[in-house]
């Protein structure tokens, strides 16, 4: 275990944490890398990198099928990662944790299993106006196929979901509600617990897209009261290609399988196949074994630091950056919700975000510019794009200084 994690002193030792991430020593155009694109994907600590390499060097075989030592070893490690994910979300049962490729696949899985059976002609699916494309398009596809309607609860100018409007859209024909926990484009923290209460009062299940929230705040699916919760390994400092779909046991039991194949069956004849119990029913084929095990290491890493402490650290950076950017003439922060986390979207008068991104890049600062896979959010604000700085557990106040200085450079150049 890393130095940063072992020294659980009261103070948040960001310098020690940074030493755990080899890539942070990178120089970009001769300048120290300032990585502020964590909402797109987070960097990996040595513990994760070492774990994945160790699997291939010391403990790799296919899982759930071999009698030999290596297969048993790999299976144990993979199952242990599933248990870590259960603990991370405080789910009741390990069988409620389905491993998928990422949040996108998790949403598609629910749309194509729960949705395919439970949504019919004239029914409705309810999302909000701040969803990422991955929580829009799978539902649009389902609705088109079934002749159902996609309802969208609007957001206000600050970027908060209009809860009164959302409540009005919970109709007798609404079959599922699917909402982001934390907006990737605006940084809005969505009151998903309240939304789950409103939906459950009408017997409607709720899926929460936790891709941005899981790395940034403590998540307890039982406390939130949601029926499904999805998040991705790569945004929580783990490898790409792994993610989690939590589903309440009763729902997972009743749902049909997702894909057909090996590992998801109990018995197969040409006449009839019986399916394995959850979670295996939803996990056809050989999964990302080493990635899954390394994802477990990532959950260990963030849990050892503490999600509440990570949240407080990122809160400090977001507040500092928001205050200082707002003070710059011509800068407008996009998304001023009551509660925000980790994400700072902004525009600069007279300068296109793409040009901001190019100038910042030459300063070694990585931000995202564009529509952030949330074009309806951009349309809501009549913007083609924004610049977005998003924070991670290893970012520092000094990096906020660098961001502010670089924006002054942009202004000097274009205005």
């Amino acid at each position, binding site marked *: 275990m890393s130095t940063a994690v072992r020294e659980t002193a009261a103070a948040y030792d960001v310098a020690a944490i940074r030493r755990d991430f080899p890539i942070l020593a990178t120089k970009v*155009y001769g300048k120290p890398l300032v990585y502020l694109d964590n909402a797109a994907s987070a960097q990996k600590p040595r513990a994760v990198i070492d774990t994945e390499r160790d699997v291939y060097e010391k403990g790799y075989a296919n899982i759930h099928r071999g009698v030999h030592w290596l297969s048993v070893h790999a299976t144990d490690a993979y199952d242990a990662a599933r248990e870590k994910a259960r603990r991370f979300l405080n789910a009741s049962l390990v069988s409620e944790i389905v491993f998928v490729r990422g949040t996108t696949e998790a949403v598609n899985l629910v749309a194509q299993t729960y949705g395919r059976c439970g949504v019919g002609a004239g029914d409705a699916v309810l999302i909000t106006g701040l969803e990422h494309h991955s929580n829009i398009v799978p539902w649009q596809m389902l609705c088109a196929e079934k002749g159902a309607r996609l309802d969208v609860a609007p957001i206000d100018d600050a970027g908060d979901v209009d809860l009164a409007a959302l409540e009005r859209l919970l109709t007798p024909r609404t079959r599922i509600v699917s909402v982001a926990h934390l907006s990737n484009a605006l940084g809005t923290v969505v009151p998903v617990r309240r939304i789950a209460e409103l939906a459950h009062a009408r017997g409607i299940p709720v899926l929460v897209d936790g891709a941005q929230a899981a790395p940034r705040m403590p998540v307890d699916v039982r406390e939130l009261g949601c029926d499904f919760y999805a998040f991705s390994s790569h945004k929580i400092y783990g490898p790409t290609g792994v993610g989690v779909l939590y589903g309440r046991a009763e729902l997972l039991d009743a749902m049909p399988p997702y894909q057909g194949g090996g590992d998801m069956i109990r018995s197969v004849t040409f006449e009839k196949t019986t399916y394995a119990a959850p979670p295996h029913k939803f996990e056809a084929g050989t999964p990302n074994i080493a990635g899954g095990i390394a994802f477990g290491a990532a959950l260990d890493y963030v849990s050892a630091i503490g999600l509440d402490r990570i949240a407080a650290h990122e809160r400090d950076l977001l507040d500092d950056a928001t205050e200082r950017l707002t003070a710059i003439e011509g800068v407008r922060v996009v998304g001023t919700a009551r509660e925000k986390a980790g994400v700072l979207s902004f525009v600069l008068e*007279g*300068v*296109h*975000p*793409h*040009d901001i991104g*190019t*100038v910042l890049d*030459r300063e070694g600062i990585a931000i995202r*510019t*564009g*529509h952030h896979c949330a*074009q309806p959010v*951009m349309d809501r604000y009549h*913007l*083609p*794009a924004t610049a977005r700085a998003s924070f991670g557990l290893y970012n520092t106040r000094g990096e906020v200084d660098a961001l502010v200085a670089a924006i002054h*450079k942009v202004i*000097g*150049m*274009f205005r």
Partner: protein
Amino acid sequence: MSTDLRDLYQEVILDHSKRPRNFHAIPDADRKAEGYNPLCGDRETVFLDLDGDVLKDVSFQGAGCAISTASASMMTESVKGKTKAEADALFERFHDLITGKSGAAATPSPELGKLAVFSGVREYPVRVKCATLPWHTLKAALAGENAPVSTESEGPAAETGGAQ
């Protein structure tokens, strides 16, 4: 500012991006086409009046980054009065210049004229699409295509010269 950024954002480019020329609609234009870069959300409409084979008047409207706005502005100035074939040939030279093909950037073809200031784009492969968006849109207008042009239609490898 670092010198390499100056190679991209040359004074002429900054000037055209802040004060674009021929930045208006042509009412009842003979041809018009819309271009869209889905990666950054840039949208430009190119308007065109033809006199036989000659581009009698060219203008544009829309919102984009400094590179795409300056490119559109300078394109309208460069192709006005040229024949379709000349405009096509100019785009080809321009494309070679900004993708750094066959040493075009080192010794820009004299026909490019002021467009040579875009040679710095070759060091920024992700910005090539910004510079070519107006030209693709012009091409669509010349071809009388009604469907909006997307910078993605060519495929990323083609547009970036495989440099990504």
